[in-house]
């Protein structure tokens, strides 16, 4: 699992990347994390799987990424957002269905 930060975001977000945005206050994100980790093993050949702590990246950076709510799992292609599941829709099944679309 690659840890993205505000500083390495641009350089590391290349090819097909999946980012699990989370922070320690988001209990839903923490509940979902084991599922995300399992999916990251299953689809390891297809995507670069990352996590990003939104508390560390700060409000301005989150606005720039248009991530204003958690959980948010976003698929990027060469740094451009192509898909996301967020909020109550973010179930294991919804994440897997999204990943399958971009394999």
């Amino acid at each position, binding site marked *: 699992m690659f840890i993205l930060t505000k500083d390495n975001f641009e350089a590391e977000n290349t090819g097909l990347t999946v980012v699990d945005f989370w922070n320690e206050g988001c209990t839903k994100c923490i509940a979902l994390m084991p599922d995300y980790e399992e999916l990251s093993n299953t689809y390891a050949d297809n995507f670069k799987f990352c996590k990003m702590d939104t508390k560390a990246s700060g409000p301005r950076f989150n606005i720039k990424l248009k991530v204003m709510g958690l959980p948010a799992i976003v698929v990027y292609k060469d740094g451009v957002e192509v898909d996301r599941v*967020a909020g109550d829709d973010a179930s294991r099944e919804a994440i897997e269905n999204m990943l399958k679309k971009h394999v």
Partner: protein
Amino acid sequence: MRKCDVLIIGAGPAGLTAAIYAARAKLSTVVLEKSKIGGQIVTTTEVANFPGCPEDSGPGIIEKMKKQVDLFGAEIIKEEVTALDLKGDLKVVKTSKSEFEAKTVIYAAGAYPRKLGVEGEKELTGGGVSYCATCDAGFFEELEVYVIGGGNSAVEEGMYLTKFARKVNLITIDPHLTAEKSICEEAMKNEKMTFTYNSVVTKIHGKEEGIVTGMTVKNVKTNEETTFEPDPEDGTFGIFPFIGYVPNTDLVKDILDNENSYIKTDDHMNTNIEGVYAAGDLRVKLVRQVVTAASDGAIAAVSAEKYIEEKFNK
């Protein structure tokens, strides 16, 4: 086709408690959960009124319940139920991946926050529209936030949001707040809070941008519409609807007796179908709390146990 004695749908406090009781009674027990274990309570950071657990949190209480479920040997499977056939002696429950045949079903799928039902809401969930203040308040540090609703949840969550946001404007359809008096009094004293009455949201702007860029509100008395726009320097604001809950009963409301989609049961959690029980927030009842959900779950499991004994083991 997998067989079990008790199939529980939903792994919130009601479902987990039912699993503890059923598994402890040596019934083969499976719990199906479509998203997160724990249900709505896991987004609550402070739970002060669950007996025996002072100063606990939603996730803390759920973790302990889950430990008991594991200890007694019930299995939790993370799959979403897509279809049910509850009529026969053996109940058939399908998910997208598997099929179960159970002697009894305990329906404990809970409730979810009611949506506004306006244009832009779905697309902007996670882009400025949020139903969970504790999860998302941090995104609105120094920004403006609108809370929709005037009941206890709306006013309490609104006050919580003032710890982060520059300003919290509460918009309610009623001519006054409907929250408990003590909560309202505290909110009125909060300098960061403002109140707009007799008003409903009709549209959320920003679908194309992927982030909230405005919101149109209609005064229900005058029918006058106003569009709120964010401070140009902010570029966006938050929208937190707290307008009540909807029971998660779409799959069963045509077959189980209900009142406004809430399932009707007797004191033993029996529904109108033999061997099918309901427990937790989706039931017709007065108090929807962790403690009453757990109570429902325990009763449903014991009812299921008695029914299995009578029907299958004699």
